[in-house]
């Protein structure tokens, strides 16, 4: 929904994130305790001052029902807090918090999400989100489904293997400056990427997300509160999420209409974009999204390296928002687009437009 005068000004005022290949001897509670306290400290707030707390995580990934309840220990839930949880990426938890702030009963919100895929098999966990009668029993993994999408793009001449390698190269080079990047390289060459064998035909290892453990915490605040917490808040100018059909066979997988619509509704076109942080599990999905968002040459894409550098189920989307917000807060950029996805082959998409003053 794009911001008009009827919406309350809400901004990201503080962020903290961490990603690594494997979090050994650190559980989700310990990870999030560290990130949440960093995030609150940099905004100078205590939990008592936070009006609403919302988290995103996956019981399927944790292998335990109501697993998020444990992680509330990292927030500190006494005195009692107003709290909610989504079994979705943290970007969708941020949407819920944004709505809560719009209602006007609270002025601040803490949003966080995390995932520890090293403890299990994330590709099997993601197979369970598919149609339970027709698709899930065949156990297609998420990268195989993305490969079906990639071949359609190649067959229709909408992408080339070289263009895919360019996207992977961009990720690895950008990732070099990101301490959270698990896969990065300062001097990766296009030739080396092109020579990699396909591991999920036609996708090469460098074309698919680098699965990582990690988490992200974000503090939102409304109006003057935001200004008191942060010198240059990253104002949410528009936020919207849309869904395409769950049934793969009815969709044109070379496109993501819901991503396009979410970006339109979030007000992508209102001004130039300095930066876009997009959430795709493959180089080919990044390309589909770049086209749906109609990004110009001037827009820098995935300065963090994106999910090809580090992908944490349930946190990757919130991390995209955090990456754009932190660069606005630091003054590096003025206006950016952050995107989060969920479901198979870019089925559900959220777009958040952030802007500094």
């Amino acid at each position, binding site marked *: 929904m794009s911001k008009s005068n009827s919406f309350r000004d809400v901004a990201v005022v503080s962020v903290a994130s961490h990603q690594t290949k494997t979090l050994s001897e650190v559980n989700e509670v310990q990870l999030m305790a560290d990130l949440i306290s960093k995030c609150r400290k940099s905004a100078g707030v205590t939990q008592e001052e936070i009006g609403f707390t919302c988290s995103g995580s996956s019981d399927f990934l944790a292998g335990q029902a109501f697993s998020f309840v444990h992680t509330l220990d990292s927030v500190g839930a006494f005195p009692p807090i107003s709290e909610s949880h989504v079994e979705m990426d943290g970007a969708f938890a941020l949407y819920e918090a944004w709505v809560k702030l719009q209602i006007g009963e609270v002025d601040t919100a803490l949003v966080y999400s995390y995932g520890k895929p090293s403890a299990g098999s994330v590709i099997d966990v993601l197979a369970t989100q598919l149609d339970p*009668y027709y698709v899930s*029993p065949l*156990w297609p*993994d998420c990268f195989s489904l993305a490969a079906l999408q990639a*071949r359609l793009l190649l067959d229709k001449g909408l992408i080339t293997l070289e263009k895919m390698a360019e996207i992977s190269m961009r990720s690895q080079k950008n990732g070099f400056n990101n301490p959270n990047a698990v896969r990065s390289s300062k001097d990766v060459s296009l030739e080396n990427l092109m020579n990699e064998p396909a591991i999920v*035909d036609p996708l090469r290892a460098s074309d698919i997300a680098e699965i990582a453990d990690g988490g992200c915490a974000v503090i939102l605040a409304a109006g003057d509160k935001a200004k008191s917490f942060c010198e240059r808040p990253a104002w949410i100018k528009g936020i919207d999420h849309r869904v395409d*059909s769950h049934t793969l*066979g*009815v969709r044109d997988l070379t496109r993501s209409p819901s991503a396009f619509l979410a970006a339109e509704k979030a007000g992508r076109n209102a001004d130039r974009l300095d930066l876009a942080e997009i959430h795709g599990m493959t180089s080919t999905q990044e390309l589909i999204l770049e086209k749906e968002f109609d990004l110009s040459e001037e827009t820098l894409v995935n300065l963090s390296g994106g999910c090809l550098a580090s992908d944490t189920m349930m946190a990757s989307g919130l991390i995209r928002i955090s990456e754009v917000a932190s660069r606005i807060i630091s003054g590096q950029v003025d206006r950016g687009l952050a995107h989060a996805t969920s479901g198979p082959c870019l089925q559900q998409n959220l777009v958040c437009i952030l802007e500094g003053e």
Partner: protein
Amino acid sequence: MSELEKPLRAELTVEYPFTRTTGKVIGAFMTGLREKRLFGIKRSDGSVLVPPLEYDPVSSEPLTEMVEVSQSGVVETWTWIDPPRPQSPWDDPHALALIRLDGTDTSMLHAVLVGSRSEMRTGMRVTAQWKEERVGHIADLEGFIQETEEVHS
């Protein structure tokens, strides 16, 4: 390390301990599989959706008109699965493909059973291969095999 110092370990099986009925549409498709028949469902514009859904995935209209569809079709896109996931119905490497059955308007996900990746190409014609023992499950359909004249006749 004494017994007390050993970390606690417990086996955990994630399960979904409920039974569900499949309903009139999905149930009819599953019953069809048991009889080696494939069914789709008509949408309001006359196009045919396979596998069938109770509601139109775009317009959300309820759908009721089941139609039997062809067992042969065309590979729209594919990837190669090697090795197969241990939980999957397949033991051998195979293609995973979106297949558009003749006379239908959407594609369905299933395996194409060929010996090697080099035998796969987009646009190839395939036909259903059934298991001997069928129970009303998507894996009653063993997969699709390359269409030959013998199979076609």
